[in-house]
């Protein structure tokens, strides 16, 4: 039986048209885009074309984009660039629900001379923007706020936040790894200075990311060496992946409507059915401002790893915010920042869909989940107490 893949916020399937576009650059088109000869120059043109394709998706000019090795490198590049360009400023503002790529770097910096302000979220995972605005100071080197949360799918009001931050003349970066390809990104009108994205979250290959750097933003390279990317990111271009990422940008642009209609409808069907048929289950996050493909559902009194392993028996792939699956002993920092009680945080399951999911698959999950939860609850010492003895 084929896998039913609902873990697209972890990674996505490479679109067949993306793979096809990449293949020549693994075989006969092996030139170095920096070479003087036509054989390399031809490849250089394809890199330029990929940059343009990405620009069209984001609303950016090609020279505002540099290719990196992943979303994490883009995030690190942006934050280091801001603090190196403003060496006298010692405050960083970010949120309590960032991806580890930003969170762990900021925690590291907080132990090395920086004052980091972590903006809290409310019970729905929505950002306390007033808190953020109150804490903007002349000492703030950068504000970094994710566009959409990977665990709950909650989308932050980036346009409003970026405008406020820019009014104070402070650099604004957003980790848009989960947002690009799922919601429109209009950088012509949204005053973001830097934006990170990752190829494998939008049906492109792994090992490639990009950073948008608005013209005029003070910058300092993260990787130093050759003159590639106009001196902003050294290292021979990962040509095949860049071409693939360009193609993926074009591909998701054509699928954006489907993502926000058909995929969204499947997600809504899935979560509505599960919350309705399974008692003590609820959705985590601001349902009105969410990515169309993501739902985080908590099943009280059961533990996420056990749920995932029983789902795996049916070849259903998803993920959990439980402690056991995070490799640590504490449940997801995102759910804890939201104040989700422990009874529910340990039993949270994230389903993240894509255009490749079918209604049949969703019906299959809707059919298989209730007995899984019931089975684990029948083993749980808390379930009887919670519902009262039959």
């Amino acid at each position, binding site marked *: 039986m084929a896998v039913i893949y609902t873990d697209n916020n972890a990674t996505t399937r490479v679109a067949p048209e993306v793979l096809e576009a990449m293949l020549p650059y693994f075989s006969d088109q092996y030139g170095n885009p920096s070479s003087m000869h036509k054989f390399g120059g031809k490849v250089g043109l394809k890199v330029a074309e990929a940059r343009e394709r990405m620009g069209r998706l984001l609303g950016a000019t090609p020279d505002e984009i540099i290719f990196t090795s992943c979303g994490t490198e883009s995030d690190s590049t942006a934050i280091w660039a801001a603090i190196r360009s403003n060496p006298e400023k010692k405050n960083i503002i970010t949120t309590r629900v960032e991806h580890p790529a930003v969170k762990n770097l900021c925690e590291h910096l907080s132990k090395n001379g920086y004052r980091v302000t972590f903006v809290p979220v409310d019970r729905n995972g929505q950002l306390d923007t007033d808190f953020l605005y109150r804490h903007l100071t002349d000492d703030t080197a950068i504000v970094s706020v994710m566009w959409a949360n990977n665990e709950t799918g909650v989308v932050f009001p980036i346009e409003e936040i970026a405008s406020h931050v820019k009014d104070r003349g402070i650099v604004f970066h957003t980790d848009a790894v989960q947002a690009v390809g799922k919601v429109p990104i209009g950088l012509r009108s949204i005053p973001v200075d830097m934006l990170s994205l990752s190829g494998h979250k939008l049906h492109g290959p792994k090992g490639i990311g990009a950073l948008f750097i608005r013209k005029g933003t003070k910058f300092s390279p993260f990787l130093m060496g050759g003159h590639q990317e106009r001196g902003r990111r050294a290292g021979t271009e990962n040509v095949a992946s860049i071409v693939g990422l360009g193609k993926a940008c074009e591909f998701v642009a054509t699928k954006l409507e489907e993502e926000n209609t058909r995929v969204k409808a499947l997600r809504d069907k899935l979560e509505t059915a599960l919350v309705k048929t399974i008692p003590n289950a609820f959705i985590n996050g601001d349902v009105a401002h969410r990515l169309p493909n993501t739902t985080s559902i908590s099943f009280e009194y059961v*533990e996420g790893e056990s749920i995932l392993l029983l789902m795996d*028996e049916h070849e259903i792939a998803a993920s959990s915010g439980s402690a056991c699956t995070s490799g640590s*002993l504490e*449940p997801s920092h995102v759910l804890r920042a939201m104040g989700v009680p*422990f009874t529910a945080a340990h039993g949270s399951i994230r389903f993240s869909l894509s255009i490749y999911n079918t209604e049949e698959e969703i019906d299959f999950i809707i059919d298989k989940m209730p007995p899984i939860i019931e089975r684990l609850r*029948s*083993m749980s010492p*808390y379930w009887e107490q919670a519902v009262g003895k039959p």
Partner: protein
Amino acid sequence: MNRPNVDLIFPRRVFKNEEALMWEYTDNVKKHFLNPKNVGIIEDANAVGEVGSMACGDALKLTLKIDDNKRIVDAKFQTFGCASAIASSSALTEMIIGKTIEEAEKITNEHIADYLGGLPKEKMHCSVMGRDALEKAISCYLGEPEKKIEGSIICECFGVTDFEIERAIKENSLTNVESVTNYIKAGGGCGNCHEGIQDIIDRLLIQEAPSKKEPKRLTNIQRIKLIEETLEREIAPALKKDGGSIELVDVDGSQVFVKLFGTCATCKKSQLTLKNYVERKLRELVSEDLIVEEVS
């Protein structure tokens, strides 16, 4: 050209699809998780042990039926937790049914882990939870008063005391904070207590040190050689500073006969030098029972 067989140096591991889980669970863990034995509650149980909490992420309620001969005739469990917590609980019930409580008392968390063919190290705390529940159930049966929390809380996140940390370190020969976290969760939250845990490890290591330095039994030749070396390397240079020197004459059992030259030999304090210095050094570095005698 003769090339070395790389496979012999770096044995190839065969990766099987069914191993492709986030944790490397053994077949036995999977079996006990997918088809757990003895799930439920014994209504007329005469021993109950409850450990863990929802906040901690796992909890186990163990109920036992113990007969007049102090034999466990039935055991059931309810567990909230991950696959290895459920498997450990199931294994525990299988292990104890039919045993007397004296026999059951001897079960350690290692036994539970072994019964399952091993647990990933990050999951050892699941086996500790099983052992703790069993202990509590037996105390309950024996009518022992509910044990007060012994010691003081070190890990605030998971409510673990120094007493429990010490016990885990001793029973499982743990040597670092990470392994303590794997076994009893202490230190797995905010991380503020890592220093406190390290202090306990250091303290136990020091306490253990003398017993570890069990006097090695030396053969006669080894003993004499060691005395010679020690005199040459450690003692002679020190005496030389005072213008003296020392020569080994004989060793008889625990008696070491030495000859002293130079200022030491005529020094009235030579007796003191020998007793206080040479003997102390030899006892420290060779053997506790050595007696130094001066010959002329």
